[in-house]
């Protein structure tokens, strides 16, 4: 009996070990730096591609006052000129989501709601 229980334990341990390899802990946060100048994205990809379950932190700097808005996820972040702010996103839902800038009410000029980039979350 005793040796068999040991075998059981070993098998159990093996299964746990395999599980530990197969199901890694939640992925670490990825960081992407984004700079907005003259109402356009100055650096970084026009489309950020993620797989569902991924987590990313967008770090924004803009040259004017604006609110950055991820549609669908409805995450909004108010920016002041020149000050970096972080926007953590957990990609729970698949889809393609525009990220637009909403400018301050007094701001003039054209392109008052420019789309800065798209967040594309693919199913696993």
């Amino acid at each position, binding site marked *: 009996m005793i040796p068999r229980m040991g075998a059981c334990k070993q098998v159990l341990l093996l299964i746990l070990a395999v599980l530990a390899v197969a199901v890694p802990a939640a992925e670490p946060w990825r960081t992407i730096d984004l700079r907005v100048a003259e109402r356009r994205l100055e650096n970084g990809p026009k489309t950020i591609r993620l797989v569902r379950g991924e987590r990313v932190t967008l770090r924004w700097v803009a040259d004017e006052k604006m609110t950055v808005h991820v*549609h669908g996820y*409805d995450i909004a972040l108010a920016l002041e000129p020149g000050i970096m702010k972080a926007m953590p996103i957990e990609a729970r839902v698949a*889809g*393609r989501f*525009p990220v637009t800038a909403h400018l301050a*009410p007094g701001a003039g000029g054209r392109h008052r*709601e420019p789309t800065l980039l*798209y967040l594309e979350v693919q*199913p696993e």
Partner: protein
Amino acid sequence: MSVGAAARRLACPCALVAAPAAHAHGFGQRYDLPLPLSLYVTGAALTVAVSCVMLAVFVRSSPHGAGEARFRLLPEALARHGAVRLLVALARTIAVAGYLLVVAAGFAGNQNPFKNVAPVTVWALWWVGMAYVSALVGDVWKIVNPLETIFRVAERAGLRALRRELPPAAGVWPAVALYLVFIWMEIAWDASDRPAAIAAAIAAYSLVTWIGMFVFGAEAWLAHCEAFARLFGTLARFSPSEVRVAGGRLIEWRLRPYAVGLLPRAPLGISEIALVVVILASVSLDGFLETPAWAAIAEGMDDWPVSPRTLAIALAPLLFLGIYIIFCRLIAWSAGGVSTRRVAGLFAPTLVPIAIAYQIAHYLSFLAMAGQYIIPLASDPFGVGWDLFGTGTYFVRLGLVDARAVWYVSVAAIVAGHIAALFLGHLLALREFAGRRAAVRSQWPMLVLMVGYTTLSLWIIAQPIVTTR
């Protein structure tokens, strides 16, 4: 047939956003992922393969009557039964109540598009939903059209319509014109998600309809001028049921196989061909206007005096008509002994299944997402803080339909629509052209046209959606 911009502009559910008043992005905004390349190629390959197989089968088949099979779901005797009439009356009452609620809420309610029942009801439930029901179930609009119900009630109360004769040259041109105006409102109108603007548009359209019904009689107006009766009626010819209504009474409801209702008994008139082509063009245009290709075109037209979208709505039907007529010429030429005009009148409805399939693929996830807004808004239709049914705080869930499932259903629907179109084209060719060889020859140009139109649909849903407003 595109909830395009209209819905697109139903402002973002901005409750969480800092300055909601400033934002206006569409209610119609869709978050669909582009079809992956592998599925796009699979869909296109299937389309071509299916076309070849069907043509081969067709070469060996013999002419036979299709579309004869009918099953009386609701025979005349039963339709006259009190219980059925009560059900019909109930459905109509609900439709009229919904209509009145939308107009009242639009004018008097909260003007945030997400806090008023009007935008979601008009753009998601009625516009997209009714198109689905028409194509997949039957011509429900014919039974519940609230404008007709209200007019009939007025007639019963003693109103006597003048019943002037509509000039025969009118055809269905009034319906074509009204439908184009509607498409413009949906795709290009900036105010399309503003509740008060929606209510005003409904009021104006209702007035036109009632004046038309008063002058020309309800039947004539519905048959020639009421854009939605004609539109939903065209889609419903694909559906597996046939509704017969006369004088506002439901007479009979018959079951039939899908698509056979689109086989024309006689060639369509010019205005009816135009109506079908405008429907086909509007469906594709709605999707095309979200592609990067269009974004590039629109950017190039930045300093033009006319809005690019308005121009597109004016030109797309003409482009489609031009291509269609070229192919009809080719069909007439390869079959021999038949005029282009007759071919154009016969084959236009056979393209409708492709448009329906695209429509289903295009709006699947939109309907599942945007339709949810009715849950909180049913409790608070005017957006003033009521909670009638305790659903006022329901939070709309994205991704209710799995993204992968949307891809598969889309490709399956588009290929199925293509098969239906081919089937109709083949049947019609056998019926119309003298001899099998002429019939088969005539189907080569048709095949190219249909594969082209189906591939356009696949191409559009394989494009990443780009917002250009």
